[in-house]
């Protein structure tokens, strides 16, 4: 754990276990560390010492705790939520009484429908990562909504008063969700219930009212590590496995940030230009129509798959 200040590295100390997630509780000045193992360590920055860790193992009725994957602090009422790997739960803790106030058991049925749970197990490849757990958490500024990303690539939306998710979204790849976040920003945004979810392959932006359809989805060429949305704008920044970090701008989601307001003009100019359609010289035909364009002897060389065939028409 390193503490950096303006002048450079301010202080460095060791954590008892390998860290996984970090959060800072402003009212008390506690830095919270989710680690491998069943404890959440607290380092108080005002007193400059570790406080008694929050010990999750006293409630391990759902299975052994392997680690804490993510920490979220509710911006409205400071409720702490921990994504616990092992039992596959999300634990809620009250920072004032430092005690558990609730536990959310994630629906394990998601793990069964996931494409990652195939019959064959490759040793060393997919043995340890089979545990079903939450991997990302995000609570909304209204204090009631909680988004949970799971290791199976699902994003579940909860009202914290109910143990059942009111919306479920599948990323479709069966890969762990790296980041979920509520897209807030007020009246200039396209809607107020948008949420982003990202796994290694794809970033999806969708409305909580209609989780089955995407508002936008982005497939970057390199694997995503982290996503950051700039509140009140349509700009996303992505940390990824490539050399260049990427940023994407969706004008229909929100305006450009103040520091690059020229983006709005640029994209408006691009809107006016006639967009060259990639497939404008092509026509999509079904297999039954294919004989009208090519001799039937050629048709049967195509693999027998139910996809549409492309025909060059010009």
């Amino acid at each position, binding site marked *: 754990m*390193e503490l*950096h200040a303006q002048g*450079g*590295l301010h202080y460095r100390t060791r954590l008892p276990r390998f*860290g*996984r*997630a*970090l*959060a*800072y509780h*402003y009212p008390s000045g506690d*830095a919270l560390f989710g680690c491998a193992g069943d404890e959440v360590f607290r380092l108080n*920055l005002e007193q400059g010492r570790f406080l008694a860790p929050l010990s999750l193992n006293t409630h391990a009725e759902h299975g052994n705790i392997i680690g804490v994957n993510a920490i979220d602090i509710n911006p409205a009422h400071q409720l702490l939520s921990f994504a616990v790997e092992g039992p596959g739960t999300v634990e809620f803790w009250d920072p004032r009484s430092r005690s558990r106030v609730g536990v959310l058991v994630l629906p394990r049925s998601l793990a069964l429908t996931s494409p990652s749970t195939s019959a064959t197990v490759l040793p060393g490849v997919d043995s340890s990562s089979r545990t079903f757990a939450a991997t990302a958490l995000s609570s909304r500024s209204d204090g009631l909504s909680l988004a949970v990303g799971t290791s199976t690539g699902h994003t579940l939306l909860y009202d914290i008063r109910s143990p059942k998710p009111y919306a479920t979204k599948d990323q479709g790849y069966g890969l762990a969700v790296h980041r979920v976040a509520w897209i807030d920003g007020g009246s200039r945004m396209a809607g107020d219930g948008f949420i982003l979810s990202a796994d290694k392959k794809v970033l999806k932006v969708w409305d909580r009212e209609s989780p089955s*359809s*995407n*508002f*936008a*989805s*982005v*497939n*970057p*060429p*390199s694997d995503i*590590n*982290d*996503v*950051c949305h*700039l*509140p009140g704008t349509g*700009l996303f*920044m*992505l*940390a*990824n*496995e*490539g*050399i*260049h*970090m*990427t*940023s*994407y*701008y*969706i*004008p*229909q*989601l929100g305006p450009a*940030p*103040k*520091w*690059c307001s020229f*983006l709005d003009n*640029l*994209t408006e100019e*691009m*809107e006016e230009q006639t*967009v060259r359609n*990639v497939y404008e010289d092509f026509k999509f035909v079904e297999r039954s129509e294919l004989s009208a364009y090519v001799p039937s002897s050629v048709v049967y060389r195509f693999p027998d798959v139910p996809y549409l065939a492309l025909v060059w028409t010009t």
Partner: protein
Amino acid sequence: MTADAQESVKVYTVNGAAAGAGSASSLPDWLTRKRAIKGKGKRAIREEFEGAINLIQHFEFPEASNRIKVAKSGHHAIATGVYKPQIRVYDLDQLTLKFERHSDAENVDFTVRETLL
């Protein structure tokens, strides 16, 4: 800057490689190859290359990036990456890198402890 239009919502790539396939182009590989045979390819590729914008300068790491966050004030973006393990802070008002600072170990997670004014 390339636009990737799907489901009528346009996504503009303003930094880094365009979404979709390949690195310089979001068009399918076989399509661009065909254009190159017709002699238009070079021009088409150059068009896209010139059209690409890099909103923030030096928005990169030598190998890969781990985490990125924007400060609450909205004026700075902070990112960590490898190799060597480092933190880079971007001044968004100037659209450029402000400073980089190296660390001993690769970053797992970070948070910005801002004074709430």
